[in-house]
């Protein structure tokens, strides 16, 4: 009963906030609707028994990626009229992409129904064996069977990270940078001077 209510609540919220993500006029509102969609998707995953994935979704997407989205969208001075002018031009491409994604989804469901892949149980419940938590199950798979793929994914991410740094980093000349070590090594005795001037005398600065 409660599961059913929770499922329909989360599912409705995901779809509604997904729709508002593309319908909102203000890009900041769009990002906030997207965050709500992520959050409700995490709720759906908890209902499936995939609590580890749900928490990672919130930590990674809501906690880090969406914050950066928001950061960028807030900082940019966006011309809304120009954005909307480009909408009709890109609409066919978007439509094709949407159809491809829908087909993929249908293929996945079809393959699952046909039993080609032994994913999950027959009743559709999560495949976690009894007594093994989500984290253990995923860890056992990632670090044994898919170890090399997992490592490869890590290396690709590392390359992307280094690439981003290399592309944006530029050596500028004539910049008066800070010498942190010098700042830390400074003692109060070097920075301040205790003077006790007599009455009426000035202070030499």
């Amino acid at each position, binding site marked *: *009963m*409660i599961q059913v209510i929770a499922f329909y609540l989360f599912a409705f919220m995901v779809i509604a906030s997904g729709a508002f993500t593309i319908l909102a006029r*203000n890009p*900041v*509102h769009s990002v*906030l609707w997207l*965050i709500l969609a992520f959050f409700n998707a*995490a709720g759906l995953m908890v209902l499936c028994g995939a*609590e*580890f994935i749900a*928490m*990672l979704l*919130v*930590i990674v997407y*809501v*906690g*880090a990626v969406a*914050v*950066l989205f*928001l*950061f960028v969208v*807030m*900082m940019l001075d966006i011309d809304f009229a120009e954005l909307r002018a480009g909408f009709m031009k890109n609409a066919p491409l978007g439509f094709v992409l949407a159809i491809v994604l829908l087909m993929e989804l249908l293929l996945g469901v079809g393959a699952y129904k046909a039993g080609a892949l032994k994913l999950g149980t027959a009743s559709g419940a999560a495949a976690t064996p009894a007594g093994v*938590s*989500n*984290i253990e199950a995923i860890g056992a798979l990632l670090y044994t069977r898919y170890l090399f793929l997992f490592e490869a994914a890590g290396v690709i991410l590392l390359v992307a990270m280094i690439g981003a740094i290399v592309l944006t980093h530029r050596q500028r000349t004539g910049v008066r940078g*800070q010498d*942190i070590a010098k700042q830390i090594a400074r003692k109060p005795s070097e920075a301040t001077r205790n003077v006790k001037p007599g009455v009426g005398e000035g202070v030499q600065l």
Partner: protein
Amino acid sequence: MTQFFAQWLPYDWAWGVATICGILLIALPLMLGVAMIIYVDRKIWAAMALRRGPNVVGPWGLLQSFADGLKVALQETIIPSAANKGLFLLAPIITFTVALMAWAVIPFNSGAILANINVGLLYVLAISSLGVYGTVIAGWSSNSKYPFFSAMRASAQMISYEVSIGFILICVVLWAKSFNMKDIVEAQHGAVSLAYWFPVLDGVPVLGWKINGFVANPLLFPMWVMFLISGMAETGRAPFDLTEAESELVAGYQTEYSSMAFALYWLGEYANVLLMCALNATLFWGGYLPPLDIPVLYLIPGFIWLLLKILFFFFIFSWVKATVPRYRYDQLMRLGWKVFLPVSLMFVVVVSGFLMWKGHFA
């Protein structure tokens, strides 16, 4: 508690009623505690500045927070005409709600935990990563320069320190072999003793006593120090309160807020600080366990031990606020990315290596 209500109600309803009762049992005392802890904070701060602090309302000024609460409740909520109204009002609600949500997985006693979930620690991380939205949305929707600067600072600061907090928590999880908060506390039961290294001391008074808490572990003690400091940065407390640095940003993201919206930020901030204290106590200082593994100490209920630990950490937070000058922003970023991140990453390697060597996971 579900069984108790199940006597009269169908299971689903009993579960719902029991959960709501549990939420109220945590949230209402917490709100009272926040009101009192604001008074405690002001008293400690005043004592360190050789002042008296609040001493007019009620005996010893104990009712000061309630008087303040009544005052803000009677004030008018001012919404700037250029503000984004919906988000402007939503932001304090987010801050306040998120500050309460993470308490669901804190174990108050061996049986007293609202949501005893497998991914408790990840839940805490997930919820604390939401905290930044209250600040960022407030800064943007105010449509004002200083709140916006504050929001930019807050988003960079909170993300930076979350990274190192994540690595610190991995060390704890490796040692406890679980993400479940209750299991983490139980793993600290007699976790550290000299007798582990020198079996001669087993059973000897004082030297042979077992300590409940990872903090006495030489590999985890530096992690706790870093967790405490990162916690101060994460909650935006002094000396890392750059998001509300009054000398540069007026009041930061709260500048345009008044009345109850402002009060929600105030309460949310202190609820977050108390949560950080509770996390320090739960993850490193043995949570509801007494500090030493001596039978007579278990006569005192676990809840009292947790409360004492929370109060101790809150004193540290106040102490730091009263004595340490505010960081410069670049120093804050440097501390997060160039000091804490490499050191905590190194400790993950060292701790996991040590545990493999000792056969901890076998």
